[in-house]
């Protein structure tokens, strides 16, 4: 508990000099897009209905897949990502959906199947959008596999991953997309 005030002062001063820690206008960023190859870990996750899901089998099945990382009580980023998912679902052709939307929880302690069910309901999710939770170690493995490891859920960032069904490669989108951009990216990847 006892701190050395002078050490504290020095830290303060050095942070001070490194400066620049001020609010600056946040220009709406264009999102960035890269093509990546990922190896999906062989883990078992749990969906909103409490059913077990083998992630590797699911993602490698060749069905068109979009994946993001969110959590039930997240502010700002997840609501907007999820609004994007919900909106995309309304743009899909009628009939059984081809593309599988997946959200993986990064707050597995709180995101129980019930919390995830309620979350999907709030966004009026239709079948074809699943929310997965799991053991913390397994969630960590998934985040790591997608180069998205976030040790502290409060510093997580907007990421959308679209799997190209033909090549098995992933389109990694960092940032927020408008509805028309999202649809265009899906078309380009051949999942729509």
């Amino acid at each position, binding site marked *: *508990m*006892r701190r050395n*005030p002078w050490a*504290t*002062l020095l830290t*303060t001063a050095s*942070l*001070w000099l490194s*400066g*620049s*820690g*001020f*609010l*600056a*206008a*946040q*220009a*709406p*960023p264009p999102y960035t897009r890269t093509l990546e190859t990922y190896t999906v870990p062989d883990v078992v996750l*749990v969906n909103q*209905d*409490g059913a077990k899901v083998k992630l590797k089998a699911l993602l490698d099945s060749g069905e068109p897949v979009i994946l993001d990382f969110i959590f*039930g*009580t*997240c*502010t*700002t*980023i997840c*609501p*907007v990502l999820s*609004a*994007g998912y*919900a*909106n995309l679902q309304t743009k899909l052709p009628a009939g059984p959906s081809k593309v599988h939307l997946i959200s993986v929880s990064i*707050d*597995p*302690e*709180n995101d*129980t*199947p*019930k919390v995830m069910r309620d979350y999907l309901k*709030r*966004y*009026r999710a239709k079948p074809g959008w699943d929310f997965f*939770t*799991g*053991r*913390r170690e397994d969630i960590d493995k998934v985040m790591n596999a997608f180069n998205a490891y976030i040790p*502290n*859920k*409060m*510093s*997580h*960032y*907007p990421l959308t991953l679209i799997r190209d069904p033909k090549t098995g490669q992933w389109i990694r989108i960092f940032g*927020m*997309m*408008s*509805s*028309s951009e999202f649809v265009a990216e899906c078309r380009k990847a051949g999942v729509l």
Partner: protein
Amino acid sequence: MSGWRAIPLLSRCLAGAFGFLLLTAPALAAPPATAHPAGTVAGLPEDKALALGERMYRQGLLPSGEPMPSVVNNDVPVAGTAFSCSSCHLRAGLGSWEGGIVTLPTNGARLAIPRYWKFPNLSPEERRELKLQNPAARPAYTDETLAHLLRTGRDPSGYDMHSVMPRYHLSDPDMAILIHYLRNLSARHSPGVVGDTLRFATVIAPGVSEDDQQAMLVPLNNYVARHNQFSAGFGNRMYLGVGGNEMSGAYRKLSLSVWRLTGAPETWEAQLDAFLAKEPAFALLGGLAPGDWKPIHAFCERAQLPCLFPITDLPVVSDTDWYTQYFSKGYYQEGQAAARYLHGLEDPKPARKVLQIIENSLEGKALAQGFRDTWAELGQAAMPEILLPEGKPLALATLADLLAREKPSTVLLWTGASAFPALTALTRGATGAFMSARLLGSQLTSLPELVRTQVWITYPYRDPKLEPKYSLYADTLLGGLMQRHPETRISTRTYALIQILRQALMDMDRHFYRDNLLDRIGMQRDQILPDYLRLSFGPGQRYASKGCFIMQVGPGPSPVLLRKSEWVIH
């Protein structure tokens, strides 16, 4: 990530982290609330408009009851029921910072003054005194410019808000109601901020032993004394420049009153009302009551008074209540863990028929409730329950009869150690049993050897082998004044409460609103502290430890606990 957004937190973190070293700054006047002309808002009485505005802000519902429509990311339509202003700006309106996106404050006090990108927390008076020249990023909002911002995303300086801030196309009357609410949201400091002091209180109900009281009060008082002492002798001069002034403006001394309740629980709420009227507190810290925490919980909801981490294992379990932040769901959570564990087993046999045998006590009933609710939530059919007569230990014959009659695959024995002699009945078959580590207390390790491999223990804490190195820290706050009693976990929990409070005070900065204190705890990163494996937070999350282990008692006269499960959370 880099380059997208300058990190804005430096000044704020510093203010908090080192604020407690600073000399007390002159008390700041409460930020001015824009006086609203008496009368009506959009043709409604003001209080009615305020309630409707609150519903718009928190639930995203229009005064008509329809979802509030909005557009996010340029062209994505969203209904207010998916998320509302408070999802991003939080309940007190001070905003959030998550993953590189800053959600600016939208509370009354801040909307009424210009916004600055540099040193945003300084008041207009401080700016004048410091002769700061940097121009405002935007002027104070008028009702017209605020309506324009909410509709178009463009603020009065011409800056276009990031596209994650939705655009709201509201009618004039609806807009007037929302703006009326924003003008009043966190416009004045909450009660309990008195001069240069932030006042806290702790509640002690009758029947708590003197030792237990001291185990909480010694560390709390020690913390308060150290916080206040560190400020003495260090002046603003230490923190050169404007940043130092901004930091010291967030510093307050702390005080702690002890509110001792007397008599029957039905009379506590009235006593608490009287305490609060006499010496308004900003929040309650910790607290001890031998039984149900409910009367104190109910009071806090009604008085809108935060209560941080009461030391109880009988909390109110609610998805929606706001004001009490607990360590865990207590006994309830152990029952929950039994349900989750049984449900998750590969082998379906143990879950086929689960019989709950419940001692007639608050603890027994909370354990049973936790199992019952969770079992139903997992989509399972209701299971039989036997409530034991009050004050009568479970007899061997009774248990044997129940096993023969009900033929359960598993029994949940929510009783204390008085049932140990009856456990022999289990050995006549292969029926497994669950018992609660909390309910067995120090008797846990005297579980009869004969049944140790048949009895699973719900264990809500960190593995005891690993605990000492985490609990050790708690001694620093006992200051050699008393011995720690590890089995009560009172001083360790008090220590954890203090760590979380310290962080929350830093993050709260100078925005002394009760809801903001809870909002800031909601935005804390996960904490590794004594007793619980992990404490995690989130807006509206009110039970910080969410899991439980399943253990067995090892062999021998001084057995160790053997871990049989991972941290059970689903």
